[in-house]
């Protein structure tokens, strides 16, 4: 069968777009991008689509131009790790469909291969994150000793994060333990009186745990009036920041250092 001339039914298209939507949202796309990508693909197949994006579900109806045949489905949003790589490739896919470069079956195949692709090397990520947080310490005015300690604290903390998440620990529990470990290690400077900026070392040692992308996505959704998603993403990010702070406070209490 020639896939480009195949006439897709609303049901087939809806089931595909619904899966596409929950994966795109799960990998950390903003609501506005999701709407645009889904609508673009539906139009390419001569259909129209209306969707409701909720924090944990996507509810979608696909219909033909005359509204004679319709199909509705609800899917649960997948909570996978944030991946701009998958986000980018799924957006590319939507344009390939819109520009009629690929047909329905090929698009489905391409989609499955994109979502099953593996993320980058975790050791490289670990190293880059440690370097990043050490430079961050520098941006806040830390000296070389503080940078070194922050690098070590991040290395240990982020390694723990990777290991706990791989074993299926809850994200909030993970953030708490990582913040605790990193702040205890970051406090070494203060404990032994190394360097001139021990307070900056403790303060920045946990910053790699701040959920930056969820905060940014949340406000992006707010600007496009997706208030419910914006609020839920904001609360998610706030809770993680809270867990981070509690972990940090416990670490500082253990090392007998005050936050202010």
């Amino acid at each position, binding site marked *: 069968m020639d896939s480009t001339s195949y006439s897709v039914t609303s049901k087939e298209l809806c089931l595909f777009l619904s899966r596409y939507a929950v994966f795109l949202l799960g990998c950390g796309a903003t609501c506005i991008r999701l709407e645009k990508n889904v609508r673009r693909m539906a139009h390419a197949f001569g259909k129209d689509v209306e969707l409701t994006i909720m924090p944990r579900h996507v509810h979608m109806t696909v219909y033909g131009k005359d509204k004679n045949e319709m199909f509705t489905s609800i899917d649960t949003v997948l909570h996978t*790790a944030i991946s701009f790589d998958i986000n980018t490739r799924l*957006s*590319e896919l939507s344009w390939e469909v819109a520009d009629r470069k690929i047909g329905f079956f090929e698009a489905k195949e391409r989609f499955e291969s994109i979502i099953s692709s593996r993320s980058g090397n975790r050791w490289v990520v670990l190293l880059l994150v440690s370097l*990043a947080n050490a430079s961050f310490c520098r*941006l806040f005015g830390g000296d070389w000793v503080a940078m070194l300690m922050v690098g070590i604290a991040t290395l240990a903390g982020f390694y723990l994060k990777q290991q706990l998440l791989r074993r299926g620990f809850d994200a909030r529990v993970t953030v708490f333990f990582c913040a605790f470990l990193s702040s205890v290690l970051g406090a070494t400077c203060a404990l032994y009186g190394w360097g001139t900026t021990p307070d900056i070392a403790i303060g920045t040692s946990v910053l*790699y745990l*701040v959920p*930056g992308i969820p905060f940014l996505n949340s406000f992006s959704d707010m600007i496009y009036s997706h208030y419910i998603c914006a609020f839920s993403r904001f609360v998610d990010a706030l809770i993680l920041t809270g867990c981070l702070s509690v972990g*940090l406070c416990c670490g500082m209490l253990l090392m007998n250092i005050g936050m202010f």
Partner: protein
Amino acid sequence: MLLQILQDALFAAIAAIGFSAISNPPKRAYFYCALLAAVGHSLRFVLMQAPGIGWHIIVASVVAAFIIGVLAVFLSPKVKTPAETCLFPALLPMIPGIYAYKSFGGLAMSILAIGEESFNHYFYLFAYNGLTCLFILIGMVTGATIPIFLFKNISFRATR
């Protein structure tokens, strides 16, 4: 001053590469993330620290975010990624993380505080850090998103 600005740009670029690695960007986006972060963070540094300018951190963040938002929109068709892919990781070094957890710390201390004076002090720290953090975030995202919105035709077609 020039040396300080360059240093700020360099470390912001390293920070952006590392923090963006957490959210798996496509490999070709790393360079642009680093470039945008370096421009954004050093611009904010100049706006806040340069003699005669000395802006507040909130205003400086908004302006810096707007400028790299414009840059990201025009670079994104070149990199063939959505504008957010380069822009959001580049904003990460400007996220006010310290304000965020200090406001939680202030909240905890104000609950545990004994006496009005000590409560007021910690509540002030909670409110000050919390509000500053919130408005930096809102301002940054608004500043960075306005260009995506203004140049819709470019930003949502970048992956075409």
